[in-house]
C-alpha cells in the first residue's frame, strides 16, 4: 500500500506535551517537514526557548541546545559562528523573542546572522499560565491584565515583522498564520524559504507565526482559531515584510 501521510523524520517519537488544540504541534511539523525536504537534518542544530516550547529539544531529532529565556538568537549566533556549514534555527515564543530577548532579536537581525528564526506569536505567556505578553492585544484579558490590556499603562503590542523590516540587515521577514488549511500551506512555504535562505547563505530569516492558545485564551480550539481571524490578523497582517533577494531579482 502506498504511504500517503507520515510523520516527518526530523521529529522524534516523543509524545508532545502541548495542550489540546494548541498550534505548536502544527508548527513543529512544518519545521520538521522543511528540514526533511531540504535533506539537512544531519547538519541542523536547533535552539529551544524558555516558554511552552522549552522541551522542543525532545521533539526534533537533530542536535538541540536549550537556551536561557530570550537568548536563543545569541546562542544561535555562537553555534553558527562556530559551525558555519551547519544549519541553525531558533524556535521562540512572543515573551521570549519580543520581550526579554528583544535586544538579541534585533541585533542578530541587524548583523544578518545566517540563522532561521521561528517566532510563534500567540499573544500570551502560555507556560506560566497566561500572563500579558508584548504581543497581547489592546483590551486582551490575561492573568496580569485582568481588566484587559490598558494601553495607557501597559503600552501597545509590538509588531515584530514591521519593526525588523526597517533594518537593513535581515534577508527575509514574513508573517503567516496556522488557523486554517490555506494559511498552514502559506506557513509551510515561508518556513521552508527561511531554511532555504540559510542553506544558500542569504542570511537572517524570520517567520512569525500567528497562533492560538485555547487554554489561556479561555476558548475552545475552534473559537481560538476564529479569534485569530477576527482579532489577531487585523492587528498582525499576514505577508512578506522583507525579501531582499526577491527585491534584487526585480
Amino acid at each position: 500500500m502506498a504511504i500517503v501521510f507520515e510523520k516527518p523524520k526530523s521529529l522524534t517519537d516523543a509524545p508532545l506535551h502541548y495542550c489540546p488544540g494548541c498550534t505548536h504541534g502544527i508548527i513543529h511539523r512544518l519545521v520538521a517537514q522543511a528540514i526533511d525536504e531540504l535533506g539537512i537534518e544531519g547538519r541542523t542544530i536547533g535552539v529551544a526557548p524558555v516558554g511552552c516550547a522549552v522541551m522542543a529539544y525532545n521533539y526534533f531529532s537533530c542536535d538541540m541546545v536549550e537556551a536561557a529565556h530570550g537568548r536563543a538568537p545569541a546562542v544561535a549566533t555562537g553555534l553558527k559562528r562556530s559551525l558555519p556549514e551547519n544549519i541553525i534555527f531558533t524556535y521562540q515564543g512572543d515573551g521570549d523573542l519580543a520581550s526579554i530577548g528583544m535586544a538579541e532579536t534585533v541585533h542578530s537581525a541587524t548583523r544578518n546572522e545566517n540563522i532561521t528564526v521561528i517566532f510563534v506569536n500567540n499573544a500570551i505567556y502560555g507556560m506560566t499560565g497566561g500572563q500579558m505578553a508584548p504581543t497581547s492585544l489592546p483590551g486582551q484579558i490575561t492573568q496580569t491584565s485582568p481588566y484587559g490590556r490598558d494601553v495607557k499603562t501597559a503600552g501597545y503590542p509590538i509588531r515584530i515583522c514591521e519593526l525588523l523590516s526597517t533594518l537593513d540587515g535581515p534577508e527575509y521577514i514574513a508573517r503567516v498564520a496556522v488557523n486554517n488549511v490555506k494559511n498552514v500551506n502559506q506557513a509551510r512555504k515561508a518556513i521552508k524559504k527561511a531554511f532555504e535562505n540559510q542553506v544558500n547563505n542569504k542570511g537572517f530569516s524570520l517567520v512569525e507565526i500567528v497562533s492560538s492558545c485555547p487554554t489561556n485564551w479561555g476558548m475552545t480550539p475552534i473559537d481560538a482559531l476564529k479569534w485569530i481571524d477576527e482579532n489577531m490578523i487585523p492587528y498582525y497582517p499576514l505577508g512578506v515584510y522583507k525579501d531582499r533577494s526577491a527585491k534584487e531579482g526585480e
Partner: protein
Amino acid sequence: MAEKVLMKGNEAIAEAAIRAGCLHYFGYPITPQTELAAYMAKRMPKIEGGVFLQAESEIAAINMVYGVASTGKRVMTSSSSPGVSLKQEGISYIAGADLPALIVNVQRGGPGLGGIQPSQSDYFQATKGGGHGDYHLIVLTPASVQEMADLTGLAFDLADKYRMPAMLLADGTMGQMMEPVELPETAPEMIEKPWAVTGTKMQRKHNIINSLYLVPEELEKTNFERYERYAQVEKNEVRYEEYMMDDAEICVVAFGIAARVSRNAVVEARKQGIKAGLIRPITIWPFPKEAIAKAATHCKEIISVELSMGQMIEDIALASECRVPVTLCNRAGGMIPSPDQVFDSIKKAAGGNK
C-alpha cells in the same frame, strides 16, 4: 625557549588564549579590560576560523559563548566587574549544561558602577557561584603578566578536563601593567568531546545541551554527579605558592596584586627580625585549604590582605578552623594597600615578642 616579549596583561591573556586554541571571542566594551577585546579584534580576522564579535550586551556575549561551547570548541569572553554581574545568568547555564568555557574578569571597584581602579571585591561572586543554583567555577588568580598568559592556557585545559567553566580573576593592575612574558609556542592537545552538538550526520542519536530537569530526582542526580567532579577538582587542582612559610610565625595570605605588595612587606619584616611568610593562592576555587590549615598549626596569626572589605578572609577562617586569629589588612574601592600598611599589620600581629 621562546623569546620574551613585553606585553600588557590584558594582551597577554588574549594572545595566550589564541595559542591555546581559542578561536572564538565575544565581548562588550568595559574598562579596564578593553585592550583584551581590542587585541582580539585585530588578531582574530587574520586567523583562519578566528571569530571576534562585539556583542550587543554582556548577556548576549555570554550566550554566544554558550553556543560555541556547545559545539565543543574553545571559547572565551572577558569583562570587568559590572559586566561580569550581567554574565551570571549565562554562567549558571554553562555550569548547568556542563560546558567548558573561559570567563575573564579584570576586576574594578564596586558595588554598582563603582569605579575603574583595581579591586578584588568579586571574590565571593567568583568562588561561591555567582549565579543561581549549586555550582562552582575553577577560579585562577594571576599575579604577573607571565601568569596572565600561563593561567589562561591552564584554565582552558582544566575547563575541558572537568567540563566546567573556568574564570581568570585578575584585577585592573594586572590588566594594565606591562612585563616581559614568554608565550607557549606549541598548541595544546585537544580532548574528544562526544557530547558536543555538531550535527548528527545521521550517524548517531541527537545530542542535547540542556540544564532543564523537571523531575526533581533527575535534577538532584545531576547536582550530585557535578559535585563528585568538583571533589576531584578540589583533590587534584589546588595551586598556591609559599614564600618563607617554613618557620613563619605570622602568615600573610594574598593573591594577585595584593600578593606582590605583601611579598615586599614580608621581606621587610624578615629584615627586621619578624618571622613572616606568605601563602599566595593561585586557585581560589579550589581554595588551598590544607596550606592554610598547616599554617594555623605554627603561626600565631593569619593576615588576609585584600582589595575588598574582606571576602577571602572567610575561607581562611574556615580552612584554619579558627585556631588562630585571622585579621584583615585591606583597601577597597580601587585603592591598593601599600607595603608599609601590610608591614604594619605584620608588626602589630607580631606584638612585642618578635
